[in-house]
C-alpha cells in the first residue's frame, strides 16, 4: 500500500488535493458505511466539524460529476488515517460504497470552519440525528482527551440505526438515545430531556447537526438558558473553497439576513444565527 502523495500541499497552500488509498470500507448497518483512508499529515490537520471534498470514482451506472462534501468522522494522525461515516443515498455515495481496500480516490481538504471547543470548557452537550452523528463524533475524543465531560442525545429511527458505538468511540460519554419507533424522539419529549440535562448539569456549549426540528428546539432552549451553541449545516456544493457561491444559506448577521457560504464560512455556524430551515431533495 503506497503512501498518498499530496499534489499541492506545501506550507503556502493549506488545502491539499491528495490521491488517498482506501484502507477499509465496510457497512456499519443497513444504511451507513465506514470509510478509512490512508492520509498524509496535511489531511490529518483537520479539526472536528471540518470536512473533505471527495471525488467519488465513477462506477457503472453511477458517474458522479461534482465532488461530495463529507465531514471527517475520525482523525488519526498517528495512524495516518482519516475516516468517514456515510449514508448511501445517491450516485456519489453509491460509487463510494463500491470502493475496496487498495483503491485510490482524490480527497481535498481539510475545509471549512469546525466546532469551537475551548479547553476551558467543562461540559458539552451534543444533540445529533442521523448522519449528523458523523459530523459531531470527532468532538468526543477531542473533548474527552481534555477532560471535558460529554453528554449526547442521539436520535434515530430505531435502535439498529443509532450507531452509538461509532459515536462514543470507547470514550466515556453520557448517552441518551431517543427513537422514532417508541416516540421518544418526539420534539416534546426531547425538550423535557434536554431541560433536565440543562437544569442538572448546565453545559458550556451545545452542538447539533442533522435535524431542523432539533435545531429550532435548541435555539429556543439556548436563548432561554443562556447557553451558546453551534450547528453544522449542509448545502449542495461545487468548489468547496468559497469561490462559486453555490453553497449559501441564510444567516443572521448584524440585524440583517445575509447569504453565507457553508463551505468556508461554515459548515459550523453559531446556532442562534441560522435563519430558516432547509431540507435536501
Amino acid at each position, binding site marked *: 500500500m503506497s503512501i498518498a502523495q499530496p*499534489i*499541492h500541499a506545501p506550507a*503556502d*497552500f*493549506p*488545502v491539499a*488535493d491528495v490521491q488517498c488509498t482506501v484502507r477499509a470500507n465496510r457497512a456499519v448497518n443497513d444504511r451507513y458505511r465506514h470509510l478509512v483512508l490512508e492520509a498524509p499529515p496535511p489531511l490529518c490537520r483537520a479539526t472536528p466539524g471540518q470536512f473533505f471534498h471527495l*471525488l467519488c470514482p465513477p462506477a457503472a451506472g453511477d*458517474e*458522479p*460529476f*461534482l*465532488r461530495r462534501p463529507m465531514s471527517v468522522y475520525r482523525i488519526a494522525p498517528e495512524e495516518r488515517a482519516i475516516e468517514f461515516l456515510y449514508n448511501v443515498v445517491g*450516485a456519489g455515495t453509491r460509487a463510494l460504497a463500491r470502493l475496496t481496500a487498495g483503491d485510490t480516490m*482524490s480527497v*481535498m481538504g481539510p475545509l471549512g470552519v469546525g466546532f469551537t471547543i475551548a479547553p476551558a470548557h467543562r461540559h458539552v452537550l451534543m444533540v445529533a440525528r442521523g448522519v449528523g452523528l458523523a459530523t459531531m463524533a470527532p468532538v468526543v475524543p477531542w473533548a474527552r482527551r481534555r477532560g471535558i465531560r460529554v453528554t449526547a442525545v442521539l436520535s434515530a429511527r430505531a435502535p439498529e440505526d443509532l450507531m452509538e458505538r461509532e459515536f462514543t468511540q470507547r470514550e466515556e460519554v453520557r448517552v441518551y438515545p431517543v427513537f422514532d419507533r417508541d416516540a421518544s424522539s418526539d420534539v416534546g419529549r426531547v425538550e423535557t430531556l434536554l431541560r433536565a440535562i440543562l437544569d442538572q448539569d448546565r453545559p458550556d456549549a451545545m452542538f447539533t447537526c442533522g435535524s431542523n426540528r432539533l435545531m429550532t428546539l435548541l435555539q429556543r432552549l439556548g436563548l432561554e438558558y443562556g447557553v451558546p451553541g453551534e450547528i453544522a449545516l449542509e*448545502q*449542495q*456544493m*461545487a*468548489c*468547496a*473553497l*468559497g*469561490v*462559486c*457561491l*453555490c*453553497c*449559501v*444559506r441564510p444567516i443572521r448577521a448584524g440585524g440583517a439576513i445575509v*447569504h453565507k457560504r457553508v463551505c*468556508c464560512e461554515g459548515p459550523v455556524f453559531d446556532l442562534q444565527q441560522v435563519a430558516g430551515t*432547509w431540507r435536501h*431533495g
Partner: protein
Amino acid sequence: MQMVDLSVRIGSLALKNPVMPASGCFSHEFGQVFDLDRLGALVTKSVTPKLRKGNAIPRVAEVSQGMLNSIGIPSKGILHYVNDVVPLYAAYSSPLVASVSADTVAEFADAAAALSVPGVAAIEANISCPNLEADGRAFAMMPDTTRAAVAAIRRRTPLPVWAKLTPNTGDIKAVALAAQDAGADAIVVANTILGMSINVTTFRPTLGNVMGGLSGPAIKPIALRLVFQCAEVVSIPIIGCGGISTGADVVEFMLAGATAVQVGTASFIHADAMMRILEELRAFCDARGIDRVADLVHKARVEHEPIEW
C-alpha cells in the same frame, strides 16, 4: 529541450499563457491551492452596478458530466469591487480582468467607466445576462442589442473590452460580428447554456431559480462549434470557454480558432485544474515539437484526407 513558448496576445494584452479562469469560477481563494501568478489572466466574478443578493437556493445541481447553476450575480457593487477586490490582486503579475454585468446599456457603460482603474487590465462584458430593456432577453441573444451594449462600453473605457457571448442565441456569427463592429477587442465564447432539471421525488426543479446555466464537459462540443463558427467570421481574438478540463481540450479549442481559453467548472473538480491543464498543454507541445502554442490557433484541418470512391 527548448522551452515551449506559451504566450499569446489578446489584442494589446500579452498573456504569459492562454489559460485563465472563467468568471464566477474563480477568486483569490484558489491561492490556497496554487500560485495564481501561473495563470494567463485573472478573471473575477461578474459585478453589477446595483447591489444584488443573488438567486434562491439551491443554486447548483449535478447533471451528466456537468452542472446547472443559478447563482445569479450577487454583487456588492462597483465601488466595493474597485476598493476591496482590485487590491487583492495587486500582488499578482497576471493581468486582472474585471467581468461586469448590467441591466441596461447605460448602466453597462457607467459601470465600465467606473471599473477603468489602475489594477484592472481589461473589462469583460458579460452580455449574456438579461437585458431589462428587451424583456429580459440577454443582450447577446441579438446582434443589435450586442452592438448597443458593446459600443456604449467601448466609448467609456480606454481598457481592452472583451464581450462574453451566450450560446443560447440562434445566430452566433451575427452576434460575434456585431461585437467586433462595436469595438470589442476580443470575444469570449461562450457562457453557460440554459438548462433545467427536476427532482422526480419532490417534483420540484432542482434549482431554486427553476432554470440555470449548464456548464462542464457536457457542453464542450457545443462551445467548440460556436468558437469554430465565430472564427469563420471575426478577425479579433476569440477566447474559448465551455467544458475545458484537459490540455487536449485547450488544443482542440485553439485549433478551432481560440487564441486563449477560460476554465470554469473543471476547477470545481480539481481546484488546481488550470495547473494540470497548463502542464498537459506544455507536454503536448513538447511531444509534438510545437515551439509556440500560438501556432495552434485556427489550425484545424477541415479538409478531409481524400477517400477513394
